[in-house]
């Protein structure tokens, strides 16, 4: 049951609903009463995206290339733009991203809403060969009325590394899901995210990492800032299967709630079926530290300056883990803009 299937078949019962445990905080069945018509092809100008790269792959209204393939041993930086330039219609897209042995890719992915109430699902099938390295930076800028799902299924070979940072401001309802098949064997995964939400926006960052073999690492850090009536969802699941000894996995999710009517739902899960592992998770949801705010004010900062500084610093930890320097700069600017907007 997925949104993509519902869009393809027109069958509302295919929509994920709150009755599915993994979708209980991001109900689509209860939200969508009628499936909209298919999005039209778009051949207009979509302007520039947030990332610059030598090579750009653009998918508009579900139409565009179906594959990015990096041959063994090659290194590339690719901007992937997923643009919705349609109002009141629905579409889905599927893209495969393949890295050959030892290949390196920086994927600068943007989801750009250029109209109001579109309904979309974007699926990525990502496959990394031995010792390949992918850093995926995802900047999601949906319209407040949009309902979107981005779903990535990632398979790693031995020695590969997959680093990901998702940055989102949410949508009417939005789910960004990443599922990683982790072989262990020296492969390394970093799965980070930041959701900065205001008004009535919703963002759901869901991840599942399955460690199937020994000696693999996963490091995960997600931070959220929600205000107004926004709602953030974090579901992180790390599974360490029998025999995946020597696994090291750390998961952190920390959220700031800046208004009484905002909400954060978090479900961190470690499912461990073997003994010789080092796994830890930390989860906190709270407000800014008032003592720290007084300290900053005693030094001369007005309250709004102190709050903005502490909030930006809170999210900054995620941004600083981005390796690609240009993307890190863009992420920093995005954080400032999201936290500053509407003040």
């Amino acid at each position: 049951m997925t949104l993509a299937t519902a869009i393809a078949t027109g069958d509302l019962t295919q929509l994920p609903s709150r009755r599915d445990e993994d979708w209980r905080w991001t109900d689509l069945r209860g939200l969508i009463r009628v499936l909209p018509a298919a999005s039209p092809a778009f051949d207009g100008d979509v302007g520039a995206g947030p990332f610059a790269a030598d090579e750009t792959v653009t998918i508009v209204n579900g139409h565009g290339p179906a594959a990015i393939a990096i041959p063994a041993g090659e290194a590339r930086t690719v901007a992937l733009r997923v643009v919705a330039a349609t109002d009141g219609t629905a579409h889905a897209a599927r893209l495969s991203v393949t890295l050959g042995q030892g290949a390196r890719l920086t994927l600068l992915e943007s989801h750009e809403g250029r109209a109001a109430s579109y309904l979309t699902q974007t699926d990525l099938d990502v496959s990394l060969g031995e010792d390949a390295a992918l850093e995926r930076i995802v900047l999601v800028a949906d319209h407040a009325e949009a309902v979107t799902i981005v779903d990535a299924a990632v398979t790693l070979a031995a020695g590969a590394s997959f680093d990901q940072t998702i940055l989102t401001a949410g949508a009417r309802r939005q789910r960004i899901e990443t599922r990683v098949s982790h072989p262990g064997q020296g492969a390394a995964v970093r799965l980070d995210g930041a959701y900065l939400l205001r008004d009535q926006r919703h963002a759901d960052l869901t991840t599942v990492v399955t460690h199937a073999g020994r000696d693999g690492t996963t490091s995960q850090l997600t931070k959220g800032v929600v205000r107004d009536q926004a709602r953030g969802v974090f579901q992180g699941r790390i599974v360490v299967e029998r025999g995946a000894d020597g696994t090291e996995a750390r998961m952190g999710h920390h959220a700031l709630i800046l208004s009484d009517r905002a909400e954060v739902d978090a479900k961190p899960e470690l499912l461990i079926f073997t003994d010789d592992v080092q796994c830890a998770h930390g989860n906190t949801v709270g407000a800014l530290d008032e003592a720290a705010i007084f300290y900053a004010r005693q030094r001369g900062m007005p309250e709004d300056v102190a709050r903005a500084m502490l909030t930006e610093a809170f999210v900054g930890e995620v941004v600083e883990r981005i390796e690609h320097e240009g993307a890190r700069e863009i992420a920093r600017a995005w954080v400032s803009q999201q936290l500053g907007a509407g003040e």
Partner: protein
Amino acid sequence: MTAMLSIRNLHATVGDKQILNGLTLDVPAGEVHAIMGPNGAGKSTLSYVLTGRSGYEVTQGTATLNGEDLLALEPNERAAKGVFLSFQYPLEIPGVPALTFIRTALNAQRKARGEAEISAPEFLKKARATATALKIDFDMLKRALNVGFSGGEKTRMEIFQMAMLEPRFLILDETDSGLDIDALKIVAAGVNALRGPERGMLVITHYQRLLDYIKPDRVHVLSAGRIVASGGPELALQLEAEGYDRYVQVAA
């Protein structure tokens, strides 16, 4: 002539508890006054009332700086007027490098006073010179403020901020706690370097030790929320020898 800091009949509560009970105190410009007292006398409460921490409610009395009502101002406005508190327990500020924090504070103060922002080169030059004087490793200033610092390092960082912000009125709250003798000497030298005819200081301490290095002009004994005795530096020595017992009884 009114003193630089003038406190009259100050009453304050924390929660439902009356902590300051008619405190009256004058600190003229150019002078260093020490406030000594037993635990629970209201020493930290006084520092928080003067700096405007929420939860510390003034129920009666006045406090002025150069004739201006301090109690009507926001904490950051008081800072811009030149009031600086060296915290007994400085806060950790994750994700904000010390230099960024101090520059943001300095420029906010300057903006509030209608002054131009400090330029980056000028700020860094001043920071390097100040760090050297306080024997602070400059790299430490690039790390998140106070995060993972020892008690002594945090105190030194308070004095560093003080030297960078150049306040007109300094309040040191139990600055000696947790310092070894070498650190105490460095901190005292940093404070003494700021002494001058235009500055006033209030040094709050439980022990006389700090006053060997920061020599006060006057010493006041705070007990049960008011000043119960005042004298010269010899009063501190007497307290060290005899303890606070007689003052606790006077207050009761």
